[in-house]
């Protein structure tokens, strides 16, 4: 039943037929977007859009970016139409993804300009929020990647994040921030270990195992929070890690607030990207891990312990997710709410795919999703005619578009989803 799911993750139909069709479809989508941008964001926009790049008391203040809304959006529509027509007429699958990416970026810019027309909007504030909201996504994506690189599909990121968030709040209230963080990392590792045990030793279907861990964590955290935390409120009141501004770097306009004036979760996530890249691609352990994910039997023949490699990597990945989960409580509000991760574990999975199983790619993808997430928050302040519910859909729709646009073109580790049975 479910074991065949991953077999057609990457359908191996003839490449060029699919590529040509993809190019045509993408071209049509882009032309549609051009009409949409011209008709809606161009006609309807009046006045100038003002983007604030600095706060008044910053040491190096940049002037505001002022864009005449309507003409700017007509230009964007023209560029979109050009990209679309070129793709539709000339094909070329190689360009399809890139053009689609550029097209979507232009769409977002046009949208922002339209929404800000006649008003002013703090771009820096939004970019800072983008980075903050990308944290659980990039950590979750690295988790998924570490698992998938050793051939374990991890749908349980959501559950691991939730477990980390819960433990962070509970233990943080008891032991203080650092203690809570350590406990969250530990509990993430525990669920990684459980996942590894279920899929490696007990050969459970990997997707079912992940779904079950999600359900279990959701049940457990909801149960404890309504059974215990609702009564003893002091157990759900953890200290929050404050932002720490790195001297000098934090004063750079735009980039400074985004990367260098944040709390330890942001710095931790950026460090994890570097560490994961180094580990996976520049160490012997990483090479072994990847070989286990590609061809476990060959790795086994060469003396690599497949089971142990999977156990270690999945457990460490769980610890990363636990750290990411602690962000929800120790990194923002200090309090646990039922199901507070709200599907971010799955968005992280999409970020992993979008980032092509590479930590740096995952960071970029997470920033895209973080942007969508922070945009819906900040745009609520601008009072656009769009109902807030539709703005709140933005990150989810972005995820669908990304997964639909990119996934067919990613190469997944060959042994993903299959249990390995040693002979």
């Amino acid at each position, binding site marked *: 039943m479910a074991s065949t799911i991953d077999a057609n993750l990457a*359908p191996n139909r003839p490449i060029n037929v699919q590529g040509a069709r993809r190019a045509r479809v993408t071209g049509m989508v882009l032309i549609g977007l051009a009409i949409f941008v011209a008709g809606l964001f161009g006609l309807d926009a009046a006045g100038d859009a003002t983007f604030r790049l600095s706060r008044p008391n910053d040491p190096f203040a940049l002037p505001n970016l002022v864009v005449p809304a309507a003409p700017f959006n007509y230009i964007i529509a023209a560029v979109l139409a050009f990209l679309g027509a070129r793709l539709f007429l000339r094909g070329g699958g190689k360009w399809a993804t890139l053009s689609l990416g550029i097209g979507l970026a232009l769409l977002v810019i046009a949208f922002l300009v339209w929404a800000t027309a006649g008003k002013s909007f703090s771009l820096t504030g939004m970019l800072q929020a983008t980075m903050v909201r990308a944290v659980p996504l990039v950590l979750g994506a690295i988790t998924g990647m570490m698992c998938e690189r050793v051939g374990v599909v991890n749908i349980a990121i959501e559950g691991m994040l939730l477990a980390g968030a819960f433990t962070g709040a509970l233990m943080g209230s008891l032991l203080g921030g650092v203690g809570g963080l350590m406990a969250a990392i530990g509990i993430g590792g525990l669920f990684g270990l459980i996942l590894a045990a279920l899929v490696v030793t007990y050969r459970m279907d990997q997707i079912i195992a992940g779904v079950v861990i999600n*359900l279990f964590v959701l049940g457990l955290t909801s149960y404890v929070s309504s059974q215990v935390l609702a009564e003893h409120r002091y157990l759900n009141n953890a200290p929050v890690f404050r932002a720490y501004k790195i001297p000098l770097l934090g004063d750079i306009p735009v980039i400074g607030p985004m990367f260098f004036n944040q709390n330890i979760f942001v710095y931790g996530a950026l460090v994890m990207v570097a560490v994961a890249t180094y580990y996976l691609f520049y160490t012997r352990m990483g090479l072994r891990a990847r070989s286990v994910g590609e061809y476990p039997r060959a790795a086994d023949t060469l003396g690599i312990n497949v089971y142990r490699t999977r156990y270690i990597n999945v457990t460490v990945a769980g610890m990363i997710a636990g750290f990411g989960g602690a962000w929800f409580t120790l990194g923002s509000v200090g309090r646990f709410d039922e199901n507070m991760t709200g599907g971010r574990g799955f968005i992280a999975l999409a970020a992993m795919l979008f980032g092509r199983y590479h930590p740096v790619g995952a960071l970029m993808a997470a920033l895209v999703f973080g942007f969508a997430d922070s945009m819906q928050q900040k745009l609520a302040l601008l009072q656009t005619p769009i109902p807030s519910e539709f703005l709140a*859909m933005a990150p989810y729709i972005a995820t669908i578009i990304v997964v*639909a646009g990119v*996934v067919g073109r990613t190469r997944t580790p060959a042994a993903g989803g299959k249990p390995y049975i040693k002979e």
Partner: protein
Amino acid sequence: MTDQTAPDALTQKLLQRAAPGRAEFEDLVIVPIFAVIAALILGALVMLATAVDLPTIGQSYVALIRGSVGSLNAVSETLTAAAPLVLAGLGLALGFRAGLFNIGAEGQIVIGGLVAVIVGFSVTGLPFALHLPLALLAGAAAGAFYASIAGWLRATTGAHEVITTIMLNLISYRILDYVLRQPFIQREGRADPISQSVLETAQLPQLLTWIDPNLRVHAGVFLVLGAVALAHWLLFRSKIGFEFRASGKNPDAARYAGIRASLIIIAAMASAGAMAGLAGANQVLGVLDRATPGFSAGIGFDAISVALLGRSHPVGVLFAGLLFGALEAGGRQMQVDAGVSIDLIGIIQALIIVFIAAPLLVRAIFPWGFRKSRQERGA
């Protein structure tokens, strides 16, 4: 790797078919029974760990039984809770059989239920015999449409349905919030998002109100039985059901045999969505009479467990749905009688699935009752 194990598995399957009995009995009866027992024991341990004392634990399990099968009212509650679980579970089972891991039942329930409510109050002047079927069909069609978005994406772009359906779930909540605030939907005189009530002519009639007006069991149970029969026919007697199963078992072989994979994916998702939409319609037309934010109450996620527990077989789903409905109804009683949060049921349900999906684990914990010979590949 696969070329090594595939013939093995095949011979085993063939042997199993030739000599059903012991092995199937173990799979279908002993494993689930042990799974339920192990989950209940672990649930008790969880309660112990959260400072619930032993008498209360005993009391809560007594309440669990009393609230699920202990009285006519309890049975009525069990059936009421089981109906949407079975319907949505059937839909998911259809998807699983076609190799699609559709987690989107929740969103399909939301959309199906929402549309059923709208048809239920906005279409006036129809007799009961037309209005109710119309509302049910509208719910099913809406669910089918919503699910086939994910199917279409999978078929045309290869986007994995696990991610797209989860995103569609999240989107459906927002759609629900938005629609419920619209003036022609929202109940007059209310500021909170709540829809108008379904007209009498579109309600699934309650069956046992002549005994006690509090008995909530409604005509949805017949809907469920019909759906089980339909799903069984669809899967095992119809051509498209065969194509579902063939694509699920071996997509490549199915494609070479001339089965159009993308069509099957969309059809499977649509039929899964129709069932889930029906589950949503069943809830709003039979139990709630209106739509509110969160009326789906996580049924779509429980239905995943139901479909897994029922081994994606319509009859199995029926029994699994009854078990989960009983846990749900009993859990409410447990909360009232023993003061233990109903969320415990979620833990027990998840644990049952762990043990069901990992028979090796059950065998490791309970070595009795299993033949030794099927274990040798585990070592």
